[in-house]
């Protein structure tokens, strides 16, 4: 299979990117600054992320489409306002998650942003549900995120009036006479924006952001940033065998949909009423040792009680951090647990998420 490249590939190369294959794409893992510096630049100033490998699916709006989408997403789409975005899940029959996604109600259509590794499978599920085999991911568009405290003023210098956007809301703007769509959202725990725009202008757009003071950031720092912010990475922290309830993402299921029918809804309802046996939690080792994915978790009596799904060193919290699933009886904050790393049991504590306090610019309540 040919490895795919985004429209920004040459620009990454010219900025000394180190590339890694991710979901069939050659993507920058880091640039010459390195992961920790890139992480810190995003937290203190502004960083640019090429996320064009993610799938952008546009579906013409109608009430019938809304009803059908509600059969596979646990989100109240009927009350979704024009230009409002929601975090949601493409649900599996067993209550598991085929993908996590952001759905935005644009004026005449829905925009759904899908994970790169899942997008082809997602597309087929959505095609089948909507009975429309002509639906396609839009590959003429790039997706760029700009994140961090200075991003608003930098982006405002390139596109006027973006400051008025509220968190999880979007709008149409224009760049070099091309229509583009910007939402105030992201995956770093910082204030920021995601910009969907034609491939033919993306190099010029990113070049402008760099000249106004933002910096290219690779997937390596994207991972440390999102983990500090307590955000899930599909395929690791959530998958086809974890439900949104087990993943501690119940907030993303609209309250008026809990008693409604959607794929997996019976399982979800049962879990909400009766509780779950395992739960996703934050875990903080007491030393700097890193507990990577699949690290086994034990209780004080040496019983295995769970597994780590993501772990790294968090530069902004200056500590080793992890997330994982743990038996419900041990999921309370401050519960002492032990992580088996290289044959040794490392003491750790269950902790609240996020590790790093978010600084989103909130509008109205979004949940």
């Amino acid at each position, binding site marked *: 299979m040919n490895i795919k490249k985004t429209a920004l590939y040459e620009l990454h190369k010219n900025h000394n990117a180190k590339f890694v294959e991710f979901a069939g794409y050659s993507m920058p893992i880091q640039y010459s600054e*390195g992961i920790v510096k890139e992480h810190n630049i995003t937290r203190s100033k502004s960083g640019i992320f090429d996320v064009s490998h993610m799938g952008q699916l546009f579906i013409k709006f109608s009430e019938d489409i809304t009803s059908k989408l509600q059969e596979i997403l646990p989100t109240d789409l009927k009350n979704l306002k024009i230009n409002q975005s929601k975090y949601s899940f493409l649900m599996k029959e067993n209550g598991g998650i085929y993908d996590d996604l952001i759905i935005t109600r644009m004026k005449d259509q829905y925009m759904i942003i899908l994970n790169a590794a899942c997008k082809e499978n997602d597309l087929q599920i959505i095609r089948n549900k909507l009975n429309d085999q002509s639906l396609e991911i839009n590959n003429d568009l790039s997706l760029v995120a700009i994140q961090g405290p200075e991003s608003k003023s930098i982006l405002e210098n390139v596109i006027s009036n973006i400051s008025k956007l509220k968190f999880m809301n979007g709008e149409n703007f224009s760049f070099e006479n091309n229509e583009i769509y910007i939402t105030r959202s992201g995956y770093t725990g910082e204030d920021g924006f995601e910009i969907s725009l034609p491939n033919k202008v993306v190099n010029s757009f990113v070049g402008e952001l760099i000249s106004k003071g933002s910096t290219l950031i690779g997937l*390596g720092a994207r991972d440390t940033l999102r983990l500090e912010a307590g955000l899930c990475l599909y395929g690791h922290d959530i998958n086809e065998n974890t439900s949104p309830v087990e993943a501690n993402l119940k907030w993303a299921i609209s309250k008026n949909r809990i008693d409604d029918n959607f794929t997996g809804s019976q399982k979800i309802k049962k879990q909400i009423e009766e509780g779950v046996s395992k739960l996703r939690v934050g875990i903080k080792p007491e030393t*700097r*040792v890193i507990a990577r994915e699949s690290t086994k978790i034990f209780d004080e009596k040496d019983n295995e009680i769970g597994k780590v799904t993501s772990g*790294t*060193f968090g530069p902004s919290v200056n500590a080793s951090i992890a997330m994982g699933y743990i038996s419900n009886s041990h999921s309370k904050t401050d519960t002492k647990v032990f992580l088996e790393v290289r044959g040794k049991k490392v003491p750790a504590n269950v902790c609240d998420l996020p590790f790093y306090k978010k600084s989103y610019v909130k509008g109205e309540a979004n949940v």
Partner: protein
Amino acid sequence: MSDTKFSKEHEWITLDGEVGTIGITKHATEMLGDIVFAELPEKGSNVEKDGTAGVVESTKAASDVYTPVSGEVVEINQSIVDDPSKINADPEGGAWFFKLKLKDKSELDTLMNKGEYDKFAKETSA
């Protein structure tokens, strides 16, 4: 430092009398990226040539540190455990890992000199 020797696992060693000082090469740190964790062998323990004698972790992955020669650990550099970023900053100087009382000096003959190592590093990272 023309008397520095290098291993294929990207460690360096310098000898002062019976005691060798061991660290990882600049090339190794460039491949690893930002190092955020280091674990060293215990003082007083014995390590065998090419055996593991520590761990370094970057934000991306964990890597074992091997000892290029056998001996007894007589000193460890606690400052790199407390602040692992020192390893990226000065890998072939202040950020040495541990000192060994060598068991068999002839083991040094199996290692590469600077010129040989630079060539080896260039070829294997291409």
